[in-house]
């Protein structure tokens, strides 16, 4: 089965309009890119798109109410909302330090959610 997907490259302000052709889910052609980075981007986006999710988690006993957090590495794009659900259920207790693991395995991705700022005790 042949399929075509369209993307905008994010490597530079050009924002090339990329077209990826797939046959039986195998990439057969990437066009529209004007440099090799565009082709690599298109291949990554079509085969395994990933994003780092950043949000905040409630903090008890801290100088502030929320601590900003991030997934320690990028998670599959399709899992973003499941990751958010887990993040919104989590809470932390001050003090919190950058890199503290707040969720060990977020939404079954195997990827932890870590604190991205310092929160001192109130």
């Amino acid at each position, binding site marked *: 089965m042949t399929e075509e997907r369209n*993307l*905008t*490259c*994010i490597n*530079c*302000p*050009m*924002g090339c309009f990329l077209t990826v052709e797939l046959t039986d889910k195998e990439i057969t052609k990437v066009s529209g890119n*004007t440099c090799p980075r565009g082709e690599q981007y298109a291949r990554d986006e079509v085969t395994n798109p990933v*994003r*780092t*999710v*950043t*949000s*905040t988690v*409630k903090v008890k006993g801290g100088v*502030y*109410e*929320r601590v*900003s957090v*991030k997934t320690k590495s990028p998670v599959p*794009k399709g899992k*973003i*909302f499941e990751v*958010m659900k887990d993040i919104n259920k989590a809470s932390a207790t001050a003090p919190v330090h*950058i890199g503290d693991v707040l969720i060990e395995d977020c939404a079954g991705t195997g990827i932890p959610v870590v604190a*991205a*700022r*310092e929160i001192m005790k109130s």
Partner: protein
Amino acid sequence: MKDYDIVIVGGGPAGLAAAAAAKKAGSDSILIIERDRELGGILNQCIHNGFGLHTFKEELTGPEYAQRFIDEVLTLGIDYRLDTMVMDIAPDKTVTAMNRTDGMFQIKAKAVVLCMGCRERPRGALNIPGYRPAGIFSAGTAQRLVNIEGYMPGREVVILGSGDIGLIMARRMTLEGAIVKVVAEVMPYSGGLKRNIVQCLNDFDIPLLLSHTVIDIEGKEHIKAVTIAEVGPDRKPIKGTEVRYTCDTLLLSVGLIPENELSRNAGVEMNPVTNGPIVNESLETSIPGVFACGNVLHVHDLVDFVSEEAKKAGENAAAFVLGKAQEESGQKITLHGESGVRYTVPSHIDPKRLSDNLTVRFRVGDIYKDSYVSVYYGDERVRHVKKRIIAPGEMEQVVLLKDDLLKRPELTDITLKIEEA
């Protein structure tokens, strides 16, 4: 309050980098004055990642990027005052500030580094007709509410302006369960980074309407709906293109303005294009010993360049107070931006005072494809660099070699131009 040699006004990315650099350059008497309750400035609410690719070769979130500089400032033992507002900077560099514990106090500084950053263009500057109900926020205010205070401004959102903060907030509000109906941009192109358009809008199927603007706001107590219309090349609404969107929140991401009330009061000469001070090669304003860097000088897209610029300003401030600054030679070269180049920073240079090659930063007024950035020394074209794309949303730079400049003692004018192929 004891006196300090260098007072740094603002403890955001510019202030932190300037302070650390001044200390490393030999000054032992530095005070950072910050009006917020913590150091780090606006980075603290920019919880998304993508900061620091140039500086640290990794992608950090805003608070993580800030913490690296805060740690450096703390390690270097630099003094700072939080919750403290600078009220006035006098032309003789007397800084008047106040806070709850010290009251009003004055510091007779030998050098001042302006690091106040910028603020968002408000609704009042836009002339949108309609009522003035609750529920209209600048994107940055919404960002602070969501990311620091933990409050959602609303559930049904329309965003006017496609600046980066607006795009980032479109994603952020979506992740927290809001429905972002549309982003309208009056210009035919977005001022935001490509990466943000793709990862903040396209990822969540949020439409971006270019050449569109809000022409009416409904709701007396709280916003109920907005009307969006297409605009023509004259940026005037086109009749018949109006579409009504119900919403409980309107976010504005319509530009940033350097915050220069203190600079103006001090008598610092301003550049009407950047709304920031006019500076020389040392990032020194028209008042000797008063330096400027970061978003108060000109609005940046990347914090990495703010840190880089602030480092120079901090080093130059230290050289000034330590009496190490190079004497003026009398040669003054004026930099001009023409055909597409809206401004340059710095505005003028004395080549003998350059410690190194000179980075000239500039912005263009339109999108240029397959064009050249040209540099003219007088009438002689010395640089002609092909660029695949140059866009208003991305700051550009050229590096001028110190040795080249020193070879031309008669040079009075340098011009940067965009030349089409």
